[in-house]
Structures are given as structure tokens and as C-alpha cells.
């Protein structure tokens, strides 16, 4: 499905990005990037999210994993109410008396780490496979691309379920599942772009100079294929965060001791029918802000890096 979405938006179309020269001047590019209001909102949102996640221990009113700080008398308090000791709970507390706000801050950390780590590793694996396929051609290419096609014909969530069914539950396994489920997207994009770049004169020149193959791949082919890969990687971080949250919600992901946003939402599920909305609602809003911010940034990145719009 990734592929189809990308097709409709043009991310995946290598032809659109094929001629993209690496941006020489960073300054104007940033100004152009921020000139769109939605991109500005996305960037600010993303900065806030990352800031909160990084400095969670300093910012949060409470350490939700420190049992000493929890008081069962404070459980299921409404947003805005005060604790037994007089500390305000801006977003209420959950069934164990944990502050929802603090839980979200710590949960963001887990979600972001899982999302970024899995997207990065998938990007490295997928790009390597795609570039190698395009550069070497022949049987390696056929084999790799068959595998990619095969994988893209299954929905991501099904791939992830399959892998988790085999490996068992847990955060590490979720990361592995996301990597296996998403490397194919990168591989296809990288190959598509590299196929165009490969034919260009500078590669031929490098070959004539008898520069070794790995060096041509790394120093000449890769930098010229990066633009679409960066765009896809941005979007994939958002997808990975969403997927992790979904898997955690299904009880296949993060452990109770280190909850991600999905786990927090799942915790509130049992209280939902009694009308205690805040336990699920606020972590969901945090998840939404994260995903939308990343998508807005990715959307704008695509426009800026796309040479067709640059002129």
C-alpha cells in the first residue's frame, strides 16, 4: 500500500526526482522550505515533540515509572484535578495513579526511538539493496526486485503480524518487524532513481577512471539518489510510529514497564466505557500531532526537493 500511496503523490516516481542535483546552497532551501505555512506548523510541531521527548525527565511533573512517586489514591483523576499531595494533574491520571502528561512525555520517547531507529535501519538496508540491484543488474537485480515486489504485495500490518507471530512479542521484535516490512519501499525507490543516475556521464567518467565499484556506489551514485530517499524516510518514520502504536495497542509490542503511546492508549481502553476518556484521548492526540507534523514536513520536503517545482 505504501507504494500506491506514494504513486498517487508522486514521491515514488523516480522520473520526477531523477534530475535533482544535490542542493548546493542550504540557506535558500531552508527559506523555501519554511515559506509554506503548513510546513512551518509541521516543523514547529516536530521540534516541540522532539524537545519534549528528549527532555522528558526534566519537563515531566512525575516519573511515571518510579513507583515511589505513584499514589493509588490518585488513580483515575480527571484532567485538572490535584493530587493528594497538592500537585496538579493537568491531563488527569490513569488506573494506577500515573500522571497522563508525564506518561505521554516518556511514551513519546519510546515511540520516537522505535520509529526513527526502524526507519533508519530499513533505509540503510533498502537503499543498499536497491543501489546494488541497479548497479550490478543481471540476476542480482531480478532476484532483489522479485523479493521487493513479493513483499509489497502484502500489507505492512500483515507482514508485521507474520514476523511477530514467528518471533514473539516485544519492542525489539516490533523494530525488526517494521524493518522487514518496510525495507522494500526504499529498495524500490533507490533502484528507480539509481537506474536513471547510472546512465549519466559522471558515472561513466568514474568508470573510465577505474574507480572501484564500491566507491562509485558510495561516493557518486548514492549522493545523487538521496533526495527521494530522504523524503520517503521522513514519511516512513511517521508510518513506523503509527505501526508501532497499532502493534502495541494489540498487545504485541512495548512492555508495560516502558510504554509507548500505543500502550498508553491501550491502557485507557478498559476505562473508556465508563467514560474516563482522558486516559486514551490525550496520548492519541500526542500521537496524532507527531504523525501529522512529520507528514507535513515530509510533504514539503518532497516539494522542495522536487526539481519540477523548484523552477
Amino acid at each position, binding site marked *: 500500500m505504501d507504494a500506491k500511496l506514494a504513486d498517487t503523490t508522486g514521491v515514488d516516481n523516480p522520473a520526477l526526482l531523477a534530475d535533482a542535483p544535490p542542493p548546493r546552497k542550504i540557506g535558500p532551501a531552508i527559506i523555501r522550505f519554511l515559506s509554506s505555512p503548513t510546513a512551518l506548523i509541521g516543523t514547529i510541531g516536530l521540534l516541540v515533540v522532539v524537545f519534549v521527548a528528549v527532555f522528558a525527565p526534566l519537563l515531566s511533573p512525575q516519573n511515571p515509572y518510579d513507583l515511589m512517586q505513584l499514589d493509588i489514591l490518585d488513580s483515575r483523576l480527571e484532567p485538572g484535578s490535584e493530587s493528594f499531595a497538592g500537585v496538579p494533574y493537568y491531563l488527569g491520571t490513569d488506573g494506577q495513579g500515573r500522571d497522563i502528561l508525564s506518561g505521554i512525555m516518556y511514551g513519546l520517547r519510546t515511540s520516537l526511538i522505535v520509529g526513527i531507529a526502524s526507519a533508519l535501519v530499513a533505509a540503510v538496508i533498502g537503499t543498499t539493496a536497491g543501489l546494488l540491484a541497479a548497479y550490478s543488474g543481471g540476476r542480482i537485480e531480478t532476484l532483489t526486485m522479485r523479493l521487493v515486489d513479493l513483499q509489497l504485495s502484502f500489507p505492512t500490518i500483515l507482514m508485521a503480524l507474520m514476523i511477530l*507471530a514467528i518471533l514473539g512479542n516485544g519492542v525489539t521484535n516490533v523494530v525488526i518487524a517494521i524493518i522487514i516490512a518496510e525495507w522494500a519501499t526504499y529498495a524500490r525507490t533507490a533502484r528507480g532513481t539509481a537506474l536513471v543516475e547510472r546512465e549519466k556521464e559522471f558515472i561513466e567518467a568514474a568508470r573510465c577512471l577505474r574507480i572501484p565499484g564500491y566507491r562509485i556506489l558510495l561516493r557518486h551514485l548514492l549522493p545523487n539518489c538521496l533526495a527521494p530517499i530522504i523524503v520517503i524516510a521522513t514519511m516512513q518514520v511517521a508510518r513506523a510510529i503509527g505501526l508501532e502504536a497499532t502493534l502495541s495497542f494489540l498487545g504485541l509490542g512495548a512492555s508495560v514497564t516502558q510504554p509507548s503511546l500505543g500502550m498508553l492508549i491501550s491502557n485507557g481502553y478498559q476505562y473508556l466505557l465508563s467514560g474516563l476518556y482522558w486516559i486514551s484521548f490525550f496520548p492519541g492526540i500526542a500521537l496524532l500531532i507527531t504523525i501529522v507534523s512529520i507528514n507535513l514536513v515530509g510533504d514539503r520536503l518532497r516539494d522542495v526537493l522536487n526539481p519540477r517545482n523548484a523552477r
Partner: protein
Amino acid sequence: MVTSLIRRMIQAAFVIFAMTLIVFIGVNVIGNPVDILINPDLNQAERALVIKHLGLDQPLWSQYLSFIKGLMQGDFGDSFVYKRPALEVILERLPATLELALCAMVIAIVVGLPLGLYAGLYPERISSRLIMTGSILGFSLPTFWVGLMFILLFAVQLGWLPSNGRGETAMLFGTPWSFLTSDGISHLLLPALNLALFKTSLILRLTRAGVQEVIMQDFVKFARAKGLSESRIILVHILKNLMIPVVTIIGLEFGSLIAFSVVTESIYGWPGMGKLIIDSINLLDRPVIVAYLMMMVILFVTLNFIIDICYTLLDPRVRLEGKG
């Protein structure tokens, strides 16, 4: 035509074969079935006996052969939880999932297609911009969270719709269906809406992109110049040309709806295959997991095969490529 058909069939068979290998290796080599299947309290002699009984003392290739043999006969062993054949347990749940997925697909088409058509025909209007922004939300909102919020809004706050189970069912062709009773429909509505959300956005955006492409073509200009009514241009000339990509996507996405129903079924306690597989993974019910995975593989390979054939029939360019 026939050669390409045969070639695709061989490819499909190869994919299924490869997947049996992956699933088998995954379950039997990466995960150790002995730990999962055998009671840890047993002593060494009893353990050996059980291993022998389950055939786990055989070399891997012979275990694989018996796995394939079971697969051919639809025999995946008995579910540990239900004490009945795994395939039977799954097939029993299939109608519920199909019902949910079909309803979601209908909702996605009925909502997505007209809205996309509108947004494509009048891109400058504010309402079109709102629709497009809404569709971005449809992509970004995590499905499971929206599901919970639906429950909160429609079941808890407003009390309009129930949030759990299938409700009253009526029998048709020997299987129970919810959409035949009013109580069943009220149970079906929330999960179907939830599942449809993502696909609605997808169909909406595809339709809009398609309209904007078609509307620039000469035959539309010609139809306008001929003085045809706007409704005829839209319904006949534009819509007809939109249908090929949209129908393909609908076909492709139906499979992913079944896969995504895992999430929706878990939220709404819908007794379908998706909920079953999550429960089975949590309970380590290995026969059911394997049966589900193999069923999904076969389902997707078949779906892709059918879509490939439809492509060949609908689009002459693909046919020619096959020959050349």
C-alpha cells in the same frame, strides 16, 4: 494470453511454495516448537515420547514434507485452545471478517468516490480544500485511536450505537450474518466506518487525481464543445475513464482491508479472523497461527493473480508487453 496466464500461475505457485518454506522455517527453526508444545513439568522420558509422537524427532526435511502434506489436505493440526482443527476454527470466523470488510469497502466507495469527483471537478472551492484536508487527516489518524474515539462518542457519550460484538444475526447460506437484522446493522456500523476511514481517503484522493488527469484530455474538451450537458460529461465521459484505476485499487485494497480488520476487530470485539489471530499469538496457539498465515498468503497471491488477469483483459498495453 495463454502463455502469460500460465507464466503467472507458475509464479503464483512459486510464491506460495516460498512462503510455506518461510513460515515453516520461521515457526519450526527460529521458534522452538518443543518449548511451546510440551509441558515443562514432564520428565525426560515422557518428553522424548511426546517429541516422537509429534514427529519432532524427524529430520527437518521430512517434517517439512509432512507439513506440506497437511497443507494440501487442509490439516494444520488441532488448535490448542479450541481443541478442534485449526482451519475449521478460522473458517468459522471468515464470514464475520468478510462481512466487515465488504461493508467497509462499500462505505469507502460510496463516500470516497463522489467526494473525490467533486474535489477534482471544482478544485478551487473552499469545500474541496476542506475535503482534501480531511482526507489528509484520514491518512494520518491512527485507525485504532479513531476506533476508540468512535466508541467514546457514539457509544458512551451519545449512546446511539453499541460498541461490542456482532449483535443479533440471521442465517443465510448456513452462516450467520449481521447485516440482515437491524440490531446487527447497528453493531456493524461503527467497526465498518472505522475500517473504511483509511480507504475512503485513499479512494477520494485517487479519484481526484484521476479526474484532474481526465478532464484535461481532448475528448472531454470535445464533449464540451459538442454542447453535451455537464452531467453527461461527468457521468459518462469522465467517470468511465476513471473506473479502471479505481476498480484496480478497490480489488487490491480489499485484501488489505481483511488484514487491517485485525485492528478494528480487536477494538470492537468483532468475532472475526483478525481477533482470532491476535488472541492466538498471545496464547501461542501455533496451529491456528500457521493456518492463518498460510490462508493469508494464499488469499493475497490469488487476489494479485486475479488482478493481474483483469489488467491484461482491461488494458491492451499490458497484453502487448506480454507478447513482446
